[in-house]
């Protein structure tokens, strides 16, 4: 049995919602033993849909299942002094502690880095928060739409004369979680090679502002020209952007240097000699895209999105179909590569979810367990990991600490 990449790494996870749990999900996916600590009322994500059969139930949230697969789960009431003492005890013996608390809450719980470091100098403390641990916005609240508005390129997403539009789903929060996982893995490497821990401050706003989406490039463009970017009509370059086809839409990148390939693909090679299209300058004119569409769209209407995807790839032009989720799940490439994982969940039955984000040759990804029920591993964690006697566990239960 090959070992996993984060073999032997222990993680205490105090996070809720999306960003923090996605970080620890990734650590758990690659072999860390992640103990998710929930308040007795449960992670807020247990109340977030989608739910199985649209029936809201704390053990039937598909989002919670996705975010917490491969973790163990325990409950602990940090509002009690005993709860806080137990947390300190845990932080002494693990490699990583991840939380998504505001600085004031961290202080109230007694888990500031300066304190924890004294107990455990190799501890990696990963703080994930809307705006970071310092600065004027440090105590503010956020939401997916706020993350993208403040840090991301939302101002330039959408069309002119309409409101800016957010991205779909919760991709910004997932991205903050992925960054936190990368930062944590780098700090674990430092702990291994230099012998000290670290405190990582992952701000969702900053992650967006530093991301290699268009944001950083646009910002540099603004610095270079003193002009801010605007929303623009999609596909304003001829042959670039989403276009209709027989059964939906396809996105073929046939603009700029690839324009000649696109003209050949649609059987209109003579357009390359047409003064309207025969140079980069000509193809930069306003309205040129619509002129070309008169040739291009009738051609695409002869193909389904899958066919248009395949034909454009035969011509070596970057492209992708605009799939809905039924298309994504039915796609033969994803199926053949084993992207989807089927698991059995005690409350939800057989569930299909995404598996590995990437494949590591020597240290494979493994699905070891489904998401924990609330407090499912209390006995394992308190008796096994912390060495409490069964009687003490019962006492904690009676006192409402777990």
């Amino acid at each position, binding site marked *: 049995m090959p070992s996993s990449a984060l073999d032997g790494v222990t993680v205490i996870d105090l996070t809720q919602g999306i960003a923090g749990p996605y970080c620890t999900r990734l650590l758990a996916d690659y072999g860390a033993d992640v103990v998710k600590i929930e308040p007795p009322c449960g992670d807020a994500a247990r109340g977030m849909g989608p739910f199985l059969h649209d029936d809201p139930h704390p053990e039937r949230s598909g989002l919670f*299942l996705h975010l917490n697969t491969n973790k163990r789960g325990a409950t602990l009431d940090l509002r009690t002094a005993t709860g806080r003492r137990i947390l300190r005890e845990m932080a002494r013996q693990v490699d990583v502690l991840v939380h998504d608390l505001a600085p004031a809450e961290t202080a109230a719980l007694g888990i500031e880095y300066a304190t924890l470091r004294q107990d455990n100098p190799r501890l990696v403390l990963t703080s994930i928060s809307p705006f970071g641990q310092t600065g004027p916005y440090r105590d503010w609240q956020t939401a997916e739409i706020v993350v993208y508005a403040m840090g991301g390129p939302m101002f330039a997403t959408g069309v002119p004369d309409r409101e800016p539009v957010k991205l779909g789903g*919760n991709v910004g929060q997932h991205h903050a979680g992925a960054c936190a996982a990368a930062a944590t893995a780098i700090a674990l490497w430092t702990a291994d090679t230099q012998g000290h821990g670290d405190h990582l401050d992952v701000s969702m706003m900053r992650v967006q502002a530093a991301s290699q*989406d268009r944001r950083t490039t*646009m910002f540099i463009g603004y610095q*270079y020209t003193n002009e801010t970017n605007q929303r623009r009509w999609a596909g304003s370059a001829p042959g670039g952007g989403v276009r209709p086809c027989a059964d939906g839409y396809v996105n073929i990148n046939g603009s700029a240097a690839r324009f000649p390939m696109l003209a050949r693909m649609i059987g209109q090679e003579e357009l390359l000699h047409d003064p309207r299209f025969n140079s980069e300058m000509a193809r930069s004119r306003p309205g040129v895209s619509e002129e070309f569409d008169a040739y291009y769209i009738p051609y695409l209407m002869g193909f389904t999105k899958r066919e248009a995807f395949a034909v454009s790839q035969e011509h070596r032009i970057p492209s992708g179909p605009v799939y809905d989720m039924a298309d994504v799940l039915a796609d033969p490439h994803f199926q053949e590569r084993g992207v989807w994982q089927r698991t059995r969940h005690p409350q939800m039955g057989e569930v299909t979810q*995404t598996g590995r*984000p990437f494949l590591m040759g020597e240290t494979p990804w493994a699905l070891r367990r489904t998401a924990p029920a609330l407090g499912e591993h209390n006995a394992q964690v308190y008796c096994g990991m912390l060495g409490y006697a069964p009687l003490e566990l019962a006492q904690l239960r009676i006192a409402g600490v777990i």
Partner: protein
Amino acid sequence: MPLPLATPLPFDGIRVLDITNVWAGPHCTMLLADWGAEVIRVESTQVMAPNTRGHMVKVAKETPRLRKNWQMEYPDWDPGERPYNRYPIFQSHGRNKKGMTVDLRTEAGLRTFHQLIAVTDVFVENNVPQTIEKLHITYEELRRVRPDLIMLRMPAYGLSGPYKDYRSFGMQLEGTAGHTHIRGYADMDATSCDDVYMGDAAAGVSGAFAVAMALRHRHRTGKGQQIELAQVENFLPYLADPIMDYTMNRRVWSPLGNRHPWMAPHGVYRCRGEERWVAIAVANDAEWRALLHALGDPPWAGDSRFATSLARWRNQDVLDLLIEAWTSERDAGEAMRYLQAHGVRAGHVMDDRDLDDDPHINAAGFFQQLTHADAGTHRYPGLMWTAAETPNAIRTPPVRLGEHNAYVYLDLLGVAQAEYNERTQSGEIGEAYALHVP
């Protein structure tokens, strides 16, 4: 000049060889370079990799200003003598790296590459698989030269399956992953969806995560490995909400615009001035009461259409008009600060200038001023996160084509001066593209 740092960085002493293009791969190696690795970009003076240092080498002086495309905004709209050292996309990830040129299509070039691999810890590439395989620079070949090599391959669709050699940028594979379909305006079709590159951002970060773990494994076992990161697959888990709704309930999401499956109000609202907007999201009754309080408990506060979260969700059209009546008389930044002070999730939709001026991100010292020999002095976005025990900053500006040829060939590989001169004469070693490159 590199800034001296007091504490060692995590990847000090780790060498990374980088044949990456566009965004996803370069973003990954940027993160490795940011945290201390010596990243050497391997580039060619004979072929221009598309969309990395530009669309083309020869850029007509007029096109950038005519096109006003965010990726073409050269300093002062001027492509300059070396546009490839001034291209905003490259400038966004080229920092902290070194650069050399070699022609991998020649025997001498491939030999140089193997010599480099022998002194390399991590090799990263994100090309179409057949491109790399044709050059015989596969893991099986390279591990003979460097047995404990870590090789990260990050093509669009992976190293197997029907789409193995398919080409996609982030914006196209985002469509294959099902994101494009759900992110537009609810009342417009998919042709209104502009280009978004979230898949690149996601792949870059995951690549760095994977490399850090592989280094840890090598440190413990002495073994390297190949990592296969299919960019489209890496992006799928980000779309858990619509995926799970489909697999559990067979519901196919359509675009929601700025609306939310269960929160209301939830949207961006027009503020005073042109193109000024504030985003507001209300998740529960307590936040709803906070919003009403912030708005001065308006006459419609007790309207039965807004009494429960479900009622608010059903009556969003009316609700949005009432909220916008309030925001449209206010400055966007002021509305954000006022609403946040009242416990409402709110954010100013910041354009480039707003972000540049934002007091919070500047308090954290996010932007850094860099002087680049071909691009001048400007402010650049900085590190993605900070580490208390590891103070860090951008140390060198975006690398110019072939900037470190002498270091790589003469110092690192010990190539004889005569051979170096000869290969410089032939144009393989250089700081400019060959004249025939368009």
